């Protein structure tokens, strides 16, 4: 028997449940009560594409040091699902703990010798206290939270406070919930005293940070960014973004006098119609967006080519999930990068923003509207299921006082009246971005015909190859202009001079930060660069060229970011080593550390041998 794992404010608890059993809110209560003690947590739902009856997991990474990615491994398993029992037990780290419902005796063969069991007769306790069948099911979850509170030293006040907050509108539910907490607490205190060496202790590491999901934050970004039209089609994991937008609009976007809506949300018949509506609205001068996932992006391809060529702004949130095809709709991946970057037939390229967490989902969400208007082209915010549907501890959402929308180059009636030259696709300023007019601006000037067919500077149909080529070259130049407007990469230099670098992006950030720290402690130093947008600013190429070897860490099979870099920056693929994680679960710090350290140690050994 290995030593029982002993840790304070640094461990992983995983809950194995059956979906539809009411476990989600209980588990969230657990995570939030730890936050209330000032201890950072990162929680992740790993759920099935199903409403009731299939396995679901909730993983809570407790980290006093503030690591917010997945660590990997499990220190304490709360095994509530007989269907997945064997795999769940097998996944516990040696010396770890197992909390389970001990009402019915279990054969010894169902356990492991190298873990510590924490039996709690949950069903028995629950049935003794409640008679209603639904309550018996729901409160079983609350009882194990009570037991965990006793085992891990969660402050009672934190739990009570949260329950009071959660049931503010339904006060009569507070007492039975507290009763359930106490049942579990009392049992564990009496029967499992000293059985668990994982402990929580109050700190002040949470600070002013907030706990929010990426989809909720992105929806707030749309409200603050001035979106008035949302057209969408339900698809996991993006649905909650549109629903959050509706919720926040009802609060912030009602005309105070007329009580009418300063927004329009349409649930379209499919994703094609959704993007069509977005383009119609954007063309007509409203800020419009859609939220979707990979299959939706596939369906929207023709319109993306149109918007690229006819230069119509649009904001698209791609909450990426596991592909291809229906793939793993409730699991996470970063596998739509190439699809989005080159969406549409013919020669097309699109601007991608790569947020690392909900705070950036908000920031990039709002900025996307400025970029779409400025560049007159679709802007993709490439979030993913991990960011979108999980609550993340992150820096507060920020908005500069007096920040103005950048509506880009829109020629006004006054300018037209004053005789300013207008040609819809003329590059008059050298940045390759033309002026547009909005329909209804001027009775006799500035009208043009938007088309996906080849056109000249005045938007007239043409089949003249020279004019066509000039237009296509201007679009390339416009893409160059985009490099300086998009969010720039963030560098994290190694503590010691490093000849190797690592590039990563998006939701990999949390695990990457922890992995870099772990590698450093092993004496393995890498300069790191977090890429935040495509097209890649020149600094990305400089970073690559100043390192002998560059690791690129991604959550897809085909090294999609690496391919984009090789393709767009014309760099020899031999310069890179891909670290890929694509099983649908969020990448872990342990995975990255192991993959990079093995490779680096191998290289070191080789160098020593030479």
């Amino acid at each position, binding site marked *: 028997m290995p030593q029982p794992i002993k840790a304070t404010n640094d461990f992983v608890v995983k809950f194995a449940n059956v979906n539809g059993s009411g476990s989600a809110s209980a588990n969230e209560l657990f995570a939030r009560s730890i936050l209330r003690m000032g201890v950072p947590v990162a929680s992740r739902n790993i759920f099935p594409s199903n409403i009731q009856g299939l396995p679901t997991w909730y993983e809570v990474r407790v980290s006093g040091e503030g690591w917010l990615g997945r660590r990997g491994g499990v220190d304490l398993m709360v095994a509530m699902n007989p269907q997945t029992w064997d795999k769940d037990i097998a996944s516990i780290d040696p010396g770890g703990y197992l909390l389970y419902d001990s009402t019915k005796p279990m054969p010894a063969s169902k356990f492991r010798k190298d873990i510590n069991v924490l039996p709690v007769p949950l069903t028995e306790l629950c049935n003794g206290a409640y008679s209603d069948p639904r309550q018996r099911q729901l409160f079983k979850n609350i009882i194990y939270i009570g037991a965990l509170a006793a085992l891990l030293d969660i402050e009672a006040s934190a739990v009570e406070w949260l329950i009071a907050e959660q049931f503010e509108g339904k006060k009569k539910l507070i007492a039975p919930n507290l009763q359930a907490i106490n049942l579990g607490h009392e049992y564990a205190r009496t029967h499992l005293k000293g059985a668990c060496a994982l402990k929580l202790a109050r700190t002040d590491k949470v600070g002013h940070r907030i706990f929010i999901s990426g989809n909720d934050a992105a929806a707030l970004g749309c409200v603050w960014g001035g979106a008035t039209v949302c057209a969408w089609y339900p698809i996991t994991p993006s649905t909650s973004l549109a629903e959050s937008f509706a919720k926040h609009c009802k609060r912030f976007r009602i005309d105070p006098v007329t009580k009418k809506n300063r927004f*329009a949300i349409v649930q379209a018949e499919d994703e094609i119609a959704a993007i069509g509506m977005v383009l119609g609205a954007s063309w007509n001068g409203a800020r419009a967006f859609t939220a979707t996932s990979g299959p939706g992006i596939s369906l929207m391809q*023709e319109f993306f080519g149109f918007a690229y060529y006819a230069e119509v702004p649009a904001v698209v949130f791609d909450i990426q999930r596991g592909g291809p095809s229906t793939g793993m709709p409730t699991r996470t991946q970063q596998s739509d990068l190439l699809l989005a970057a080159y969406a549409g037939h013919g020669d097309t390229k699109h601007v991608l923003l790569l947020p690392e967490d909900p705070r950036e989902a908000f920031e990039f969400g709002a900025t996307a509207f400025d970029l779409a208007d400025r560049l007159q082209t679709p802007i993709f915010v490439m979030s993913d299921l991990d960011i979108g549907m999980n609550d993340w501890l992150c820096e507060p*959402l920020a908005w500069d006082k007096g920040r103005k929308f950048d509506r880009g180059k829109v020629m006004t009636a006054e300018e037209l009246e004053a005789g300013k030259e207008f040609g819809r696709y003329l590059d008059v300023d050298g940045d390759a971005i033309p002026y547009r007019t909005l329909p209804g601006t001027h009775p006799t000037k500035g*009208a043009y015909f938007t088309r*996906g067919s080849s056109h000249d500077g005045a938007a007239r149909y043409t089949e003249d190859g020279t004019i066509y080529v000039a237009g296509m070259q201007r679009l390339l130049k416009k893409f160059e202009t985009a490099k300086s407007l998009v969010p720039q990469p963030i560098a994290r230099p190694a503590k010691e001079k490093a000849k190797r670098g690592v590039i990563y992006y998006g939701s990999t950030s949390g695990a990457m930060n922890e992995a870099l720290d772990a590698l450093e402690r092993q004496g393995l130093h890498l300069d790191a660069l977090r890429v935040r947008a495509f097209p890649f600013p020149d600094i990305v190429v400089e970073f690559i060229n100043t390192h002998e070897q560059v690791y690129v860490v991604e959550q897809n099979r085909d090294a999609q970011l690496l391919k984009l870099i090789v393709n767009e920056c014309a760099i020899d693929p031999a310069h890179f080593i891909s670290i890929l994680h694509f099983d649908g679960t969020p990448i872990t710090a342990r995975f990255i550390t192991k993959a990079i350290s093995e490779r680096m140690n191998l290289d070191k050994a080789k160098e020593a041998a030479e």
Partner: protein
Amino acid sequence: MTYITKPKLHHPGLATNKLGFTHRDYEGRISTLCAGCGHDSISAALIQACFELDIEPHRVAKMSGIGCSSKTPDYFLGQSHGFNAVHGRMPSVLTGANLANRELIYLGVSGDGDSASIGLGQFVHCVRRGVNMVYICENNGVYGLTKGQFSATADKGSKSKGGEINADSPIDLVSLALMLGASFVARSFSGDKKQLVPLIRAAIAHQGSAILDIISPCVTFNNHAGSTKSFDFVRDHNEAVNRIDFVPAKKEITVDYEPGTTEIVRQHDGSVLKLAKLHPDYDPSNRAAALAYLQERHAAGEIVTGLLYLDPMTEDLHGHLGTIDEALNRLNEAELCPGADALEAVNNEYR
């Protein structure tokens, strides 16, 4: 619609409307369609209707998909913005444009390939939503630009130019529109300007989904014996249920009418439709009866035209959504962005 280049200067005696615009001000670029195309007649009818309604050209947004019909918005209302979308997707683009600015007039122009095949889904859903628009389907039963394939509105048994017989049942956009709750449904014929122009004027004034299915023969690929969409066939089988006389909102009704044979219908915007009943039993306010009548007459080989259904006081998509009365695209930071302090309050709720 223009098919020969005309000088920019025009005769000082040329008729102007109340806004001082001449007919020419509503024209567009030179049509590239085949000489004699029914679509050009529809463009001409649109130009006349807009001229007569004293519409400022820039207050109209022209939307279309892909196909011969969808090319036409380039040939009328040259001072209006146009949007030539991708194939079959005009309805969604129009819907979005309408959401952004409810103050413009939205004119959707499509064809039978664009609306009844690739775009049937979008047609159906935009009608269901009650988007305030004029949706014109220039219906010739054939794919013109790809040279003569049957479209989904081609009648079963009709013959192609190459002699092929169409075995598939036709889609009737008018019946579909009726089933889907369109509040203004009409069918007309490109060769009957007298019927068409007042219908277009009434449709523009209508504050909801106005669907106009206009049989518009294709002179090149579908104007032969054995086609049910040829000039000759449509002329011979056209059964108009009524004739309308359209009176805009601000005009007084001065025309006399015989009680019993003429019906007066007032629309949302105050405009008035005087319907001369050609079929005394036809009641355009009865959706179910209209559907039954269409089915019955179609079986008898007739093409029923006229104003087939009207709900003059319907509520449009903006009504369902409860949006503000002004255009959403005019709102600025002050009206849209809750600001830094409000965001700090939001942050607190997530702590």
